[in-house]
């Protein structure tokens, strides 16, 4: 989409820090989350999970459980429909295991009972006969030719002959002559890296309430990032026509990408269909850790060549990702983003996705990018150290800009990387002195961003207020930003607009809330819907005035005659037109439906100071500054929140968070005590600098901001720790035992 010809550069509402519309409900406890809805006669659903990392299910005997008083339904895999498509069949087999339990915590059966305690007893009464199989959880181990086979026959056509049995996809791309490029380098560094799987760590566990009637019609209330996506999956997995299943998204207690698929919803629907009663399932935290999607874990080799004056001559990355027991495509995002920040003559990326006996990977903020960029930015930093170069100058010297051929194919349009790097360089943080055992690190980050299918209605009410109806759960402040864009376009106060998120039967299809798409795509559709409403209101005014609709313009929140020839009519405000709408043609509404293109890519730079305790290996984050291009920050508080939140999740990922598996393939830390997300006292105030390099694809210049911010922290912190500890770190998390060991071996 070309830059909007009516592009606004002066804003009244956009850029203000208005009150958030969900604030009072959330702080008073009134907001309804996934587990907060109940229905008359409701049953409690509970899931039986595999205690084994890998086991053939020889027999499931549910008879004793079904015979128990208070047990109303028991379901297994065969109680679900059989989707033809591999994708949906994998979701189904993840919701309830088919013939093998593929990871510790894999759901095997589920019950619905009249109480929690009966449900618990009923689960214990199910007898499962397992034949234990060898398991593999490490990505490098899983790629070996003699590794235990997680699933047979899942390699696609990209996988070269002779690859290990668990490799599902292979890719390779780039441009230029690597050999010639490396020959021009004064220094070449090649290193291997590993990153642990980390969980999105949303505070609200998955929860849903399902009700299937005898008439084949169903209602589902659930905590999700996309009610339409839930409908699509459940329709396929349960064999229900889309229109017969109405899905309503609850308020959401965090998602970060992890709530873009289904784990319990099809199971609750199947239990409800079988029992004839509403069924609620609420996951425990342990279930969330064991059986919902963390991100991939990775292993990589990165090679970069540089001249003495800091020009990168060639670069390559070999990325190996495991996404659990089902095929995933995440390595592609990693390979594509690995070198996005650089203008390179010779570059090549290679990627492998492999299966392991772990839970199925789910999206986590910029999926695949953080671990790839971590490896690349670590090697670039080490080259800067070895060659005695300033790491920001080197990034600037090699920075991608408008016209750069990206390693993954496209040529960049307007991007904000150089401006972001320059902002970091000019910031006092970059020049601040460091003390003993302290180090400063930085990293660039990148995310593609997404647009996608979007449908918005904007309704003008008789009293001059406006309702916006959209279909994407609000995970980062979108109700505020959508209302702001509607208010800006209509030129009415923000307080006169209320945005609600509706169910699947009340609005056309919307893609899931992912890809940092909502402020961009739903915002764009809202602006267009507002413009449609304005056209209609101009028409109504023209009708009242008895002039042509073309002779009316919308200014200052009112219809006005467009020139002297249009006659001398006093402006009619939105409220005045709305009050009269019954007699001028009925309801006034604007709509817009689009598969939005043109989501601009977003770059960020993170700067961090750390101090490492030489006696314990503990890392303290002393100072942290995020620089990011937002295109246009609609609501700066939320934009800063996204930047800070990404940095904080990245700090956890870099320092302590990890899925720890035992030799038996069982997850050892399925709880927040031993899965260590940062707590408030671990963190300094995260400083933010928003840059605004307008995205030509959005009427106000918006770029998505939700994901880029989790990309740079891993390398920025690793570079800071490596400099503070005087030893190059190459594995995440940099937990104290690992850092202390590295220091003792330097």
């Amino acid at each position, binding site marked *: 989409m070309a830059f909007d010809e009516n592009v606004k550069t002066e804003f009244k509402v956009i850029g203000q820090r208005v009150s958030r519309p969900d604030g009072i409900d959330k702080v008073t406890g009134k907001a309804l989350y996934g587990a907060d809805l109940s229905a008359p006669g409701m049953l409690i659903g509970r899931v039986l999970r595999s205690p084994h990392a890998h086991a053939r299910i020889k027999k499931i005997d549910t008879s004793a459980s079904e015979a128990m008083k208070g047990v109303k339904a028991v379901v297994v895999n065969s109680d679900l429909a059989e989707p033809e498509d591999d994708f949906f069949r994998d979701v189904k087999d993840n919701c309830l295991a088919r013939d093998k339990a593929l990871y510790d915590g894999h759901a095997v059966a589920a019950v619905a009972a009249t109480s929690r305690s009966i449900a618990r007893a009923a689960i214990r009464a199910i007898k499962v006969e397992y034949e234990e199989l060898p398991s593999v959880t490490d990505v490098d181990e899983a790629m070996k030719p003699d590794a235990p086979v997680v699933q047979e026959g899942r390699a696609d056509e990209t996988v070269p002959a002779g690859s290990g049995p668990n490799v599902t996809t292979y890719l390779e791309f780039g441009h230029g002559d690597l050999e010639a490029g490396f020959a021009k380098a004064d220094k070449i560094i090649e290193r291997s890296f590993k990153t642990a799987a980390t969980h999105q760590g949303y505070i609200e566990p998955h929860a849903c309430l399902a009700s299937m009637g005898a008439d084949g019609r169903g209602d589902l209330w659930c905590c999700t990032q996309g009610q339409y996506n839930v409908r699509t999956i459940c329709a396929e997995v349960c064999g229900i026509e889309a229109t017969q299943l109405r899905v309503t998204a609850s308020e959401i207690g965090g998602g970060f990408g992890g709530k873009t698929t289904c784990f319990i919803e099809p199971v609750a629907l199947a239990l409800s269909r079988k029992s004839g009663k509403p069924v609620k399932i609420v996951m425990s935290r342990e279930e969330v850790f064991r059986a919902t999607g963390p991100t991939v874990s990775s292993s990589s080799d990165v090679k970069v060549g540089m001249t003495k004056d800091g020009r990168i001559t060639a670069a390559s990355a070999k990325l190996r990702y495991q996404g659990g027991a089902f095929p995933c495509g995440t390595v592609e995002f990693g390979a594509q983003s690995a070198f996005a920040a650089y203008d390179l003559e010779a570059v090549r990326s290679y990627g492998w996705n492999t299966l392991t006996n772990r839970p199925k990977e789910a999206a986590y903020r910029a999926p695949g990018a953080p671990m790839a960029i971590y490896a690349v930015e670590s090697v670039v930093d080490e080259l800067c150290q070895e060659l005695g170069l300033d790491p920001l100058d080197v990034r600037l010297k090699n920075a991608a800009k408008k016209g750069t051929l990206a390693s993954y194919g496209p040529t960049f349009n307007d991007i904000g990387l150089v401006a972001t790097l320059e902002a970091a360089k000019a910031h006092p943080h970059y020049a601040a002195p460091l003390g003993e055992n302290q180090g400063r690190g930085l990293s660039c980050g990148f995310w593609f961003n997404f647009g996608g299918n979007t449908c918005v209605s904007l309704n003008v009410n008789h009293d001059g207020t406006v309702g916006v109806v959209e279909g994407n759960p609000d995970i980062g402040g979108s109700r505020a930003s959508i209302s702001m864009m509607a208010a800006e376009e209509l030129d009415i106060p923000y307080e006169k607009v209320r945005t609600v998120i509706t169910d699947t039967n009340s609005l056309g299809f919307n893609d899931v809330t992912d890809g940092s798409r909502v402020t961009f795509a739903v915002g764009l559709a809202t602006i267009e819907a507002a413009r449609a409403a304005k056209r209609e209101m101009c028409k109504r005014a023209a009708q009242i005035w008895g002039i042509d609709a073309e002779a009316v313009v919308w200014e200052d929140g009112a219809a006005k005659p467009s020139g002297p020839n249009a006659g001398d009519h006093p402006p009619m405000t939105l409220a005045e037109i709305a009050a009269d709408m019954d007699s001028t043609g009925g309801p006034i509404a604007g709509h817009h439906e689009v598969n939005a293109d043109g989501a601009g890519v977003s770059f960020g730079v993170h700067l961090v100071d750390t101090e490492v305790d030489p006696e*314990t*290996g*503990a890392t303290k984050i002393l100072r942290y500054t995020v620089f990011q291009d937002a295109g246009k920050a609609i609501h700066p508080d939320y934009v800063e929140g996204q930047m800070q939140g990404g940095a904080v999740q990245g700090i956890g990922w870099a320092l302590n968070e990890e899925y720890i598996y035992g030799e038996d393939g069982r997850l050892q*830390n399925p709880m927040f*005590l031993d899965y260590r997300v940062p*707590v408030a006292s*671990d963190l300094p105030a995260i400083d933010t600098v928003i840059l605004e390099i307008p995205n030509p694809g959005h009427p106000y210049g918006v770029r998505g901001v939700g994901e880029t911010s989790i990309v740079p922290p891993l390398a920025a912190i690793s570079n800071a720790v490596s400099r503070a500890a005087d030893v190059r770190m190459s594995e995440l998390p940099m937990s*104290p*035992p690992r850092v202390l060991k590295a220091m003792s071996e330097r």
Partner: protein
Amino acid sequence: MKYVKPESLHAASVLLSEEPGTTRILAGGTDVLVQLRSEVVEPDLIVDLKHLEGFGDITSEDGGFRIGAGVPSAEMYEHKALHAAWPGVIEGAELIGSTQIQGRCTMVGNLCNGSPAGDSVPGMVAAGAVVRVHGPDGERDVPVEEIPTGPGKTSLAKGEFITSIFLPARPERSGDAYLRFIPRTEMDIAVSSAAANLELDTDGTVTSARVAVGAVAPTVRLVEEAGTALVGSKLDDTAIANMMAAVEAACSPIDDKRGTVEFRTKTAGVLAKRAAHIAYERAGGSK
């Protein structure tokens, strides 16, 4: 599951000794309720003791303090005289869980939970605390370090429970301190920990020292050799090195998700050193 709130120590003891099934004692409840919720245990009998006489009191006794088994960490923290006399014990108790948990949790519960990583235990051991045990055969006083016998296990017999902890009187020029290592800054469980309790003479020479370490053995350990290494010194480098060596020698930790043997052993020594320096400063010593 039965819940009983007995009217006397004797009644509680009878209930606990006569129950054939699994029993749990409820004081602060910050371990028991979590275990129930996470389905770790389904007790047949829960006996609530926190209302019994003296359980909620901190009283002076022989120049020291008797702390009832139901006194939560937060109340100890706010008791000025207790806090001034035993800052190391208090800082251990103040590290259990979160602020909310500290309004309920008790040192006795922390002790009887039997975790080698219990935050309040090394401070009590270093302090030479003595617990009063009530049981079917009456009362007995037991040094605190003799209560835990292994992870989740105590030396208490069936029907026995602790009613109070006694912290002795403090001489002039004495101080204690507790430190733990956690990968975060709060809301965590000790990977290793150490407490030191020192008494000095007028010129700052250590006359008595007790060092205890946590999370590095099946139980919290009193390391007598570590204390001995400090006696007669002003915490010079040699004394500290000897003390750290004694601590490391006393460690027999496990390798697990929270830390390696090597890491736990090394940091236990480092924490003991740092705790000793803090305790020395609190005792009025200066170098």
